[in-house]
């Protein structure tokens, strides 16, 4: 594809984060306004909207709230991966001329509303309610815990290696003033292992934070983005994979749909995993990161534990990973996918302050939703 035909990210922003009195709609609107300001575009320019988790008609509702009548919407519920998938689909919608300026947004007050339940969402008439809920799994924690247990069994992965993911995330958060745990001080592997088990082998500190927050990403054509306020970031490639909904349907707990979505995204972008300068992957739990690194081909199958254990993913390490501090130490308002893209854009624009990866030109974001159910990979690059 000729470079000028790409869609580009022209603006990004977070809403208020951490603990806020704002409603989900207010957080969405705040993030959209800030991201449009970042791009230098008015609200009246928006003709595409994607969001989810607000209502049954999420994107339509947000459009109404903003006074926009979009010609393209997407309200797909794919859990935490939704927003990475939306960025990819918005880029495609722009290339096809379905809309000119698309906004991908998210906002949640789950922490303040005490909306999160350890047992997860119970729906009627679905298999999980009939065949899983009677056994009281924590959803989704217990599924990820069983993936961790199996990974330890098959590959000898250790609790210390899992804990290193949380320790490295904290190191990054210490460099990020917006991180929930910015002032919490460094974390040690022993502290992770000494925190109480929630669903073994996952300790409390193997699990992401629960915060309020939101974010937005503005996309338009590269041609238009070049005339705007910020350096454009190109959406070079993407891939999706939907593997299963519930735990019983996973034939191999150490294999994920990242093995499908990742190679598709890299192939479309015309790059290899080794070319990527900065990686932002979903870290609902420490095991999520290890499984995703393997799935994406960033390390060999079964070797993610030893891959991370020498501090390679910490600031200053050879493999910059989750440079905000991630869901583990920056914040996690229920679904994290939008923050992966926001940070990748800031890294590629060279705006990441103390946590900036020097000379970053290519970034990969990978969202994981549900119980290893949905996967979306996006490869982003600078305009050159």
């Amino acid at each position, binding site marked *: 594809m000729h470079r000028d035909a790409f869609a580009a990210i022209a603006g990004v922003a977070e809403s208020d984060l951490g603990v806020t009195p704002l409603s989900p709609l207010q957080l969405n609107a705040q993030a959209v306004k800030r991201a449009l300001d970042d791009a230098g575009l008015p609200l009246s320019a928006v003709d595409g909207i994607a969001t989810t988790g607000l209502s049954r008609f999420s994107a339509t509702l947000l459009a109404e709230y903003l006074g926009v009548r979009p010609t393209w919407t997407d309200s797909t519920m794919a859990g935490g991966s939704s927003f990475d998938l939306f960025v990819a689909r918005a880029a495609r919608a722009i290339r096809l001329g379905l809309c000119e300026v698309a906004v991908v947004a998210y906002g949640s007050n789950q922490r303040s509303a005490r909306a999160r*339940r*350890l*047992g997860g969402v119970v729906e*009627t*008439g679905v*298999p999980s*309610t*009939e*065949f*899983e*809920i*009677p*056994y*009281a*799994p*924590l959803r989704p924690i*217990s599924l990820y*815990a*069983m*993936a961790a*247990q*199996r990974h330890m*069994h*098959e590959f000898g992965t250790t609790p210390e290696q899992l804990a290193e993911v949380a320790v490295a995330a904290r190191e990054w958060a210490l460099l990020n003033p917006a991180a929930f745990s910015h002032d919490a001080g460094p974390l040690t592997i022993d502290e992770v292992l000494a925190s*109480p*088990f*929630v*669903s*073994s*082998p*996952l300790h409390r500190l193997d699990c992401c934070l629960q915060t309020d927050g939101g974010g937005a990403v503005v996309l338009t054509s590269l041609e238009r983005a070049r005339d705007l306020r910020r350096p454009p970031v190109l959406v070079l490639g993407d891939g999706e994979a939907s593997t299963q909904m*519930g*735990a*019983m*349907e*996973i034939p191999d*707990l150490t294999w994920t749909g990242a093995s499908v979505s990742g190679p598709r995204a890299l192939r479309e972008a015309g790059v290899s995993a080794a070319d990527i300068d900065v990686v932002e992957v979903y870290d609902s739990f420490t095991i999520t990161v290890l499984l995703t690194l393997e799935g994406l081909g960033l390390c060999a199958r079964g070797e993610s534990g030893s891959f991370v254990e020498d501090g390679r993913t910490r600031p200053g390490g050879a493999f910059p990973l989750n440079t905000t501090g991630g869901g583990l130490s920056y914040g996690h308002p229920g679904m994290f996918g939008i923050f992966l893209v926001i940070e990748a854009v800031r890294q590629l624009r060279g705006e990441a302050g103390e946590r900036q990866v020097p000379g970053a030109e290519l970034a990969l974001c990978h969202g994981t939703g549900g119980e290893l159910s949905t996967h979306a990979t996006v490869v982003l690059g600078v305009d050159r």
Partner: protein
Amino acid sequence: MSTRRSLAEPAAEWVEWWDATRQRRLLLQRCRACGRLQHYPRSLCLACGSDDLDWAEASGFGSVYSYTTVHRSPSTVPAVPYVVALVRLAEGPVLLTNIVGCDPAELRCDLLVVLEWEETADGRNLPLFRPVPGHAAPD
């Protein structure tokens, strides 16, 4: 407080499977066209697409594919700590279940387990599993 679990009314689609548990029969769905066994029951065979399906009864033997001990939960029955596991039945299909009758510290992946029924508040029975005595997991 009841010590039995209260289950939601089964959806019409799964009443037949649940009713069999009243006789302590663990059903697997069997495709009459290709012989494939599957769980949970659905309206077509995942192997060949046939909608000609009936039932087979599981032997009750299986192995622990993976497991987790839940230490913090809103659940009172079972009460923490309890073990949630994925058990691969000898016939192939996988069930999410609880492992009972053993110290969680003794559990291992691939441990052999056998079916054990637990009566629920409405007279249905819930299939649980316990380790087969004398059968340690292969190292």
